[in-house]
Structures are given as C-alpha cells and as structure tokens.
C-alpha cells in the first residue's frame, strides 16, 4: 500500500501543486516559495520512490483505479523510470531556483509556476506509465504546458520558433496516434507487457513493422533526431532562461526515453530492422548537430544544436543494442540532462550579466564574474568529454561498446564529434569570458542576480560527483539496462 502510494506521488504531487501555485500566483514572493518548496518536495518523493524500487529489486506496479492488468492502466516503475524521475525532479529544483531569480511579477501572475508543475506532471507520467495510450496522454499534458511556457514571456523572437514547435509536435502526435492505433488493432492491447507477449506470436509482420515505423517517427520528432530536429534550434533559444534550461535538459530526453522503452523493450525483437536505422540516424544526428553549432554565434543557439548532436550519441546505444551499450546510453542520458540544463542556466547568467547573447558583443566576463567563469567551465568541459568529468565516462563507455561491436566508422565519428564539441565550448569561453568587452564600461555586475549562480553551482557539483565517483551510476545504469532488455519479447521467448 505504502509502495503504491509512492509510485503515484511524482505525478499527483506536481498536479496538486499546480493548483496551489495558481492560487498564489498574484504574489511573486509566494509564487517563488511555492515553486522552490514544491520542487524540493517532488525531489524528495522521487528519491523515496527510487530507494523503494532499489530495495524491491524489481519493478513496482500500481494499477490505477484498482483495475488490474490487462484491463486497466498500469504504472510500472523499473530502475530506468525511477532513475529518470529523480534526474527530472533534480532539474526541476535547479530550474525553480533559477526562475526565482529570473522571473518577474508579470510572468508569475500569468501562471509560470502552475505551468511548470503541469510540465513535470506530464514528464513524470510519461516516465512511469506502462501503457501506450497513457503515454500519449502524458505527452500531450507535457506538450500543452510547454507550449504555454514557451510563449508566456512573449519575447520578441519567440513566435516564429513557437509556431514551428507547436505545429511539428501536433504532427508528431498524429504519427503517435496512428502508430498505436494500428498496434491496438493488431494486438488488442496497449499495455506494453501484454503487447510484448502478443508480439512474440505474430513475429515481424508488415502491420507491426508499419506501426513500429510510425512510432519511430513520432518519438524521433520529439527527441529531435536527424532529419526531424529542425524545429528545435529556433524554438529553445528565444524563450526564458529557466524555461529553456528545463526544455533543453528534459523534453527531448522524454522522446529518447520513449524510444528506449518501446524499441529496447516491447519492439526489441525488431532490432534487426531498427538497429541499422538507429546507427545511421545517430551518426547523422551527431554530425548535423555539431556542424550546426559550429556555425552559430549566439550562446543558446550553439547549445541547442549541441542537444541535437548529443541525442545522436545516445541513439548509438539503441543501434548497438547490447546490454553494455544500453547502459552506456542511459549513463549518457543522465549526464547529458544535468550538463545541458547547467549550460543553459549558465548561458542565462551570461546573458543577464552581459545583457546580450551575441558572442561578438559579449566579453570581459572572466574579470567581471570569475565565479561564473569557473561554473561555466565545469559543464562545458564535461560536454566535451574531458576527464575526470561525467562526460568523459559517458563517451568512454559508449565508444568502448562501439569498439567491442567492431563498429569502427561509428567509433571514429563519435571521437571526431567530441573534438568539434570542445571547439564550440572554447568558442563561447574565449569570446564571452576571455576577450575584452567590446563595449565601453564593461559588462554589468551580477550583484542582484547572484541567486542565479546557485543552481548552476548545484548542477556543477552533481557533474563533478558523477565524474569523481562514476562507479555507482555505471552499475545503476547496467541494472536498469538489464531490466529494460528483460521486457524484450525476444528474450522472453528464449528464457523460460
């Protein structure tokens, strides 16, 4: 009983807090407190759930409304879900701290806090559910709140990007719905475990393949993979700093999670068909993202293209489809969510200090705020894969697995993309921090906004900790990968 309450908590808590935040939206002080205290509470619930899942040694389940599987909707929390909920709640907390320093009275009154909580309701629902249609609904909850958050500030350039973002996501929902409709027609089930059990019998029938392809496109759009990533770079850089950080860190990763859950689990037996696609798409995504970033001169636009290129790395895990590769990709995902959120927050601090995000106009920040310079350097070097930071182990694990599978071209490109990533990060460093400010009087000081550095330092510390003690996260990722692959019907049919 206690455990099933824990399973529902990461979804129910933000949903309830959304209402509380709406009631307190008139006062910025109350709104700030609700957002910070609320996300801290969600984080505590997520950690409790994670510990319970670890203690149980297997997935925890909750049949919603007491309707048992296969009739009802089931939440199933394995180690992968629990881990990602903790990561997402951590990002929520860091984002709340930053938003407390950034967001003004007007935006609080418009319901910034409410939409933040609703966003996390959707994200956590998507991580916890084991039902395909329910996943669709959580996706929509998440998207609707993200639509609202994107345009809430009504910044100047946000509208072009937002239009593309909304339209492409509605198209993606179309693909998702058709894919799951076909699957339901074929198997008569939406629960992923029931679907997997039915798929063993049907084999790779063309109807199942078409459903898999439709779902692949739907999740691919949300994850931002080549060639479906074009909506991402215009949408993220023009919205608020805290919003962009949460979006950049988490939203595409929910798409990635869905790819892992479906194509590593229930559709895992199709790996003969999908692994080639994932390798090809992964490599193309890496290259397209990193080259796109190299040509940009706007801090958050550079970072947005790097989201795309990092997604490519993660997809390699699904392409290789061994337990080690999936584990490496999961490690990569956790590292990437922390580091990317951190970089976007640091970019927000850079932009509030220098009053611009154009690298040509920035400069002199090393003298103005040496602390920010150090705090930017940690995630930037981690993204480039410099030891002993988390990015080094993420890349190392993935590339080692690629070499084991003798995928030499993939290995070479993965290494090369790492170098170009480092080039982009040094570009930001030397333009924003090192060179003298091109304007007279130098950059403004951070004074009032020193609150902004707190979440950057918090996430930087996490990156350092993962880098210094990677062992526990590696073994966690390995166990999560084992549990995920155990839901693959191909392994179900071979093991008794």
């Amino acid at each position, binding site marked *: 009983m206690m455990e099933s309450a824990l399973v529902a908590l990461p979804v129910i808590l933000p949903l309830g807090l959304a209402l509380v935040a709406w009631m307190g939206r008139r006062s910025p002080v109350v709104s700030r407190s609700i957002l910070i205290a609320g996300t801290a509470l969600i984080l505590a619930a997520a950690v409790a759930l994670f510990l319970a899942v670890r203690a149980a040694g297997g997935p925890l389940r909750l049949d919603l409304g007491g309707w048992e599987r296969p009739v009802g909707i089931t939440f199933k929390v394995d180690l992968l879900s629990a881990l990602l909920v903790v990561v997402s709640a951590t990002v929520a907390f860091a984002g709340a701290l930053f938003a407390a320093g950034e967001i003004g009275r007007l935006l609080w009154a418009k319901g910034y806090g409410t939409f933040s909580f609703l966003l996390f309701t959707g994200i956590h629902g998507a991580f916890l559910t084991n039902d395909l249609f329910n996943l669709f609904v959580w996706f929509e909850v998440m998207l*609707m709140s993200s639509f609202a958050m994107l345009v809430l500030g009504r910044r100047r350039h946000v509208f072009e990007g*937002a239009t593309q973002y*909304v339209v492409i996501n*509605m198209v993606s929902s179309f693909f998702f*719905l058709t894919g799951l409709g076909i699957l*339901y027609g074929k198997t008569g089930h939406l629960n992923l475990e029931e679907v997997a059990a039915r798929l063993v019998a049907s084999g790779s029938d063309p109807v199942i393949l078409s459903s898999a392809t439709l779902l692949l496109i739907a999740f691919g759009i949300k994850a931002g993979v080549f060639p479906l990533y074009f909506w991402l770079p215009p949408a993220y850089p023009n919205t608020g700093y805290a919003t962009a950080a949460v979006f950049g860190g988490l939203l595409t990763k929910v798409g990635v999670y869905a790819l892992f859950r479906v194509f590593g689990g229930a559709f895992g037996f199709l790996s003969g068909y999908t692994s080639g696609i994932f390798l090809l798409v992964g490599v193309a995504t890496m290259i397209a993202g990193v080259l796109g970033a190299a040509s940009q001169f706007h801090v958050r636009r550079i970072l947005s293209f790097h989201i795309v290129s990092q997604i490519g790395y993660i997809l390699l895990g699904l392409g290789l489809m061994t337990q080690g590769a999936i584990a490496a990709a999961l490690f990569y995902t956790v590292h990437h969510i922390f580091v990317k959120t951190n970089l976007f927050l640091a970019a927000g601090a850079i932009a509030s200090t220098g009053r611009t995000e154009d690298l040509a106009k920035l400069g002199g920040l090393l003298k103005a705020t040496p602390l920010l310079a150090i705090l930017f350097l940690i995630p930037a070097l981690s993204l480039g894969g410099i030891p002993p930071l988390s990015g080094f182990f993420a890349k190392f694990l993935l590339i080692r697995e690629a070499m084991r599978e003798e995928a030499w071209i993939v290995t070479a490109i993965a290494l090369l993309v790492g170098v170009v990533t480092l080039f982009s990060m040094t570009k930001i460093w030397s333009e924003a921090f090192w060179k003298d400010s091109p304007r007279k009087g130098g950059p403004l000081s951070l004074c009032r906004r020193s609150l902004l550095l707190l979440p950057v330092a918090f996430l930087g510390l996490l990156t350092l900790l993962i880098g210094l003690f990677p062992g526990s996260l590696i073994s966690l990722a390995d166990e999560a990968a084992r549990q995920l692959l155990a839901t693959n019907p191909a392994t179900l049919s071979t093991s008794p």
Partner: protein
Amino acid sequence: METLAAILIGLLAGSGALLLLRGGLFRILLGLALLAQAANLLVFTAAGLGRGDTAIIAEGSETLPADHPDPLAQALVLTAIVISFGSLAFCLVLLKKTRARIGAAGVPALANTES
C-alpha cells in the same frame, strides 16, 4: 466497409499533409485538423467497424457478441478528439498572434529558422 474507411483515412491524411506543406495560417490549421481526424478515424477503424449498437453486455451473457466493435477504441478516440481539439485551439491563437506580430509573411515562412 473497412476498405471504404481506409480510402477515407488516406484522403484525409493526404489532404492534411498537402495543406500543411502549402503553408499559411488557415491552411496550416485546416491541415492539422484533417490529420487529427485521419488519426482518430484510423484508431476507430483498427478496432473493427460494426452496426450501431450499445456496448452493454446483454443480461445472462458474460461478454459482448463476437462481432461487436471494441468499445475501448471508441473511448480512446473520444480522448484523442478532446486532446486534438484543445491543441488546435491553442494553435489557432498562437498563429493569430504570430501573424499580428510579424505579419502574414511570418506564418508560411516556417522554413526560415535562422532569424
């Protein structure tokens, strides 16, 4: 009956995609609406079509008659309709705002991502 529905779904999805690609505020909205209808109809059809009848199990029997269409799929479609209608309403407001901000040229210029 299913063949007819399949042709209809194809027509809806095809014209929806065409309208989306042509661009422009009204065409994008209409395109999205048609795509959503195609998806809904597909889920509806995938679970089987049958004569109109209530999905209530007759007294004395345990299940619905074998050829009865699956009522769960209809519940799914109902949810999907609500969701797509909500998204569409948001999209309408957003597109109108975009047009007011950056002029009519802004809406079809979806390919221009560099600004």
